[in-house]
């Protein structure tokens, strides 16, 4: 193996800012728990957080709670608690960690996490969302609204799809007016969407900068610093300002020729969510090879902004509908995702594709063997498929992962040497 590659710990400012913003959000939730201000549980994928924001309803993201517990190595006891209650070892561990939190008394009065006033299920491709929010609403006694977003099964959404979604928005808005005691103000929603579009522009610009070599940040492991602001805080001035800062920092790094590692030896595209319980260990397996993710699909679960879509304040509800229907990863077919990855490989000039297949999320993973076939056999892109889980530490086998990753990059290195 060549000389050791080191992480530069460059991400100080973006990481720090993101942390401050996310901490401020969780503090707001804790305050809402005390003051009784309305809250809304909502999912990350293709979400419509802007609508909640228009009523000053604090958004709760159970997925974020689950991943934070996993990163802090607190997910397993919660998962076990849910399994004791009857959930299967084959059920999504995100859901089990969330239900386990409820069963352990970790949400509700007297905790930092309020019960939602409304449980707004943005059903955007993921069928597990439907079950998850049915169970969460049942457990917490909150009102459930099932926002049914037709899956993108034609090149563009049909007129009937858009009418159906907008109709549901109107019905949702009537409920939110009642819950919040506030009249719907379209101008406020336009303003929120203006901030959203600014954040989307900054996120897209940051990703665009990863086309440069070296990429200024790792678009898989470091993208998490931006995924909070873009998915959770989208529509706030603070999130928009955050991305202005991020772009400034990344442009500065590009000018200096600086990247996240001391040396960028391999440019990879990563598909699939990360193993949160072993985030750092997993990252290290790539760092030692000088492998940097220049693009990732996981960073687009909430929305795909790098190909040009922005929320449009002049068409507020239609624009939110379009984003939920077409402009996020989860409401598109897995084969459409192949096209997205192919663009990454070609336009971001990647050497390889790494597929991290997780048991919990079949939406992401079911069929990734076919994806590997497509990229290796039809496109000739070196592709590695490894398995673990995003929430359940029991599925992470470090030695096995390391063997496979080492073998893959050894082969890739050999290929580079021969080509040179």
């Amino acid at each position, binding site marked *: 193996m060549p000389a050791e590659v080191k992480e530069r710990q460059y991400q100080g400012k973006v990481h720090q800012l993101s942390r401050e913003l996310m901490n401020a959000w969780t503090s707001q939730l804790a305050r809402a728990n005390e003051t009784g201000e309305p809250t809304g549980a909502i999912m990350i994928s293709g979400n419509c957080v802007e609508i909640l924001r228009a009523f000053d309803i604090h958004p709760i993201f159970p997925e974020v709670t689950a991943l934070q517990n996993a990163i802090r190595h607190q997910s397993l006891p919660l998962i076990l608690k849910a399994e004791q209650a009857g959930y299967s070892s084959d059920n999504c561990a995100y859901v089990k960690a969330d239900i386990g939190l409820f069963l352990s008394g970790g949400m509700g009065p007297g905790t930092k996490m309020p019960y939602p006033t409304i449980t707004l299920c943005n*059903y955007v491709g993921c*069928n597990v969302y439907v079950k998850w929010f049915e169970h969460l609403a049942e457990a917490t006694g909150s009102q459930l609204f099932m926002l049914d977003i037709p899956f993108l099964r034609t090149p563009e959404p049909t007129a009937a799809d858009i009418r*159906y979604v907008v109709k549901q928005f109107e019905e949702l808005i009537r409920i939110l007016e009642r819950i919040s005691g506030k009249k719907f103000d379209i101008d406020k929603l336009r303003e929120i969407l203006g901030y959203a579009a600014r954040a989307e522009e900054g996120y897209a610009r940051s990703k665009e900068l990863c086309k440069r070599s070296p990429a200024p940040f790792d678009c898989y492991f470091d993208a998490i610093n931006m995924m909070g602001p873009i998915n959770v805080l989208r529509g706030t001035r603070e999130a928009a300002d955050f991305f202005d800062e991020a772009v400034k920092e990344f442009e500065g790094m590009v000018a200096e020729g600086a990247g996240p590692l001391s040396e960028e030896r391999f440019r990879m595209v990563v598909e699939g969510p990360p193993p949160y319980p072993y985030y750092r260990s997993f990252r290290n397996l790539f760092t030692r090879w000088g492998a940097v993710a220049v693009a990732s699909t996981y960073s687009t679960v909430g929305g795909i902004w790098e190909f040009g879509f922005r929320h449009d304040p002049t068409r507020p509800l239609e624009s939110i509908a379009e984003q939920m229907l077409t402009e996020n990863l989860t409401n598109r077919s897995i084969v459409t995702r192949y096209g997205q990855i192919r663009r990454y490989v070609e336009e971001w000039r990647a050497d390889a594709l790494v597929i991290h297949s997780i048991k919990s999320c079949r939406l992401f993973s079911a069929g990734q063997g076919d994806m590997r076939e497509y990229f290796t056999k039809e496109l000739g892109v070196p592709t590695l498929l490894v398995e673990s889980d995003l929430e359940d530490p029991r599925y992470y086998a470090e030695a096995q992962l390391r063997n496979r990753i080492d073998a893959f990059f050894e082969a890739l290195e050999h290929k580079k040497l021969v080509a040179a």
Partner: protein
Amino acid sequence: MAVDQTIDRCRELIAEPLGVIAERWKESHPGGRVAACFPVWSPAELIHAGGMLPLGLLGGGATVELTHADARFQSFVCSISKSTLELGFQGLLKGVDGLVFSNICDVARNLSSIYKRNFPHFHVDYLHLPQNSTSAGVADYTAEELRRVARGFESAFGVKITEDSIGKSVELYNAIRARLRALYAFRIAEPQKLSTVELYLILRALTQADPEESLIRLDELLAELPGREGRPKDRIRVVIEGAFCEQPPLGLLEVLEEAGCYVVEDDLLLGWRWFTSDVPVNADPFRALGQSYVDRAVPSSTRHEGREHRSKGLIEKVRRSRADAVIFTPPKFCEPALFDYVPMKQGLEREAIPHLLVEFEEKMWTFERTRNEVETFVESMLFD
């Protein structure tokens, strides 16, 4: 045809590959097209209205060795998805022209597009069935979605699906579903005369046969079954719940009964008997069918029920069929069934209805452990 002969014929039919059935039908229907539907509900009426043969796409069971699909789908993915894909790789769907999938779960969703990519000669459509059953927009949406699917068939195969032809197909399937409801009612009344394996064979065979022919056979069965011999045995009456997609091996159903159960209700092949009453035949059959999907639907783990508790439909089923207990039979890795197991079990416990969990896989072939579990469960109830 006598009941036993009909059931034997059903057994033979379901052992045949889908492609063989499709090819045989085409010999007597030159130029005809065949479309197969993956569980749970699929628009058989629309397919039939276009002069096509609707079939059930129900996986490969224990008969198909996985040689390709295992490389496409991981170990933690359900068997029916893998074996269904394998049918394509092994050419066992030759003769089938169209495939319909719907949004029952994340795996079925991915399977649909993977089929399309690997086998472009099939016309593959993905039906997004509504999950918001209370929106004022749901009926219009569902009607339009069914129109879209119909237009897809028309453009792929050059068939015509008219409102008139759908009306006639709805009438035919209404008649079939009425017979199935009668068969289920008969089994509740006299389970000793119609075993669950037999009822399953009848149901499964009608997903692999000409519906006009099926209707004739169902009428014969309903006429002859009451006269069948059958002495009541000392068994408990159970509802089985969870096998609405992946097909249980016949051996599993046999074991449940041999171990001391009369299965008096189930959710087997639920999609083929979805409507609780007849779909209205009116001026807009797309809308009637779509509206019925929402408000005449049997409870299902693949459909959001509004604020009804998940256990409500199951408890009603238990009461209606005078069952003593529920045996949950979720297939391994089936998220909809495994998730619903928890609230359903909790609901049963609130009502003091005993229950047992028995996971299965379509390729399962030894049942001794299951037999032991069920026998113990039955004994605990009989001698309680």
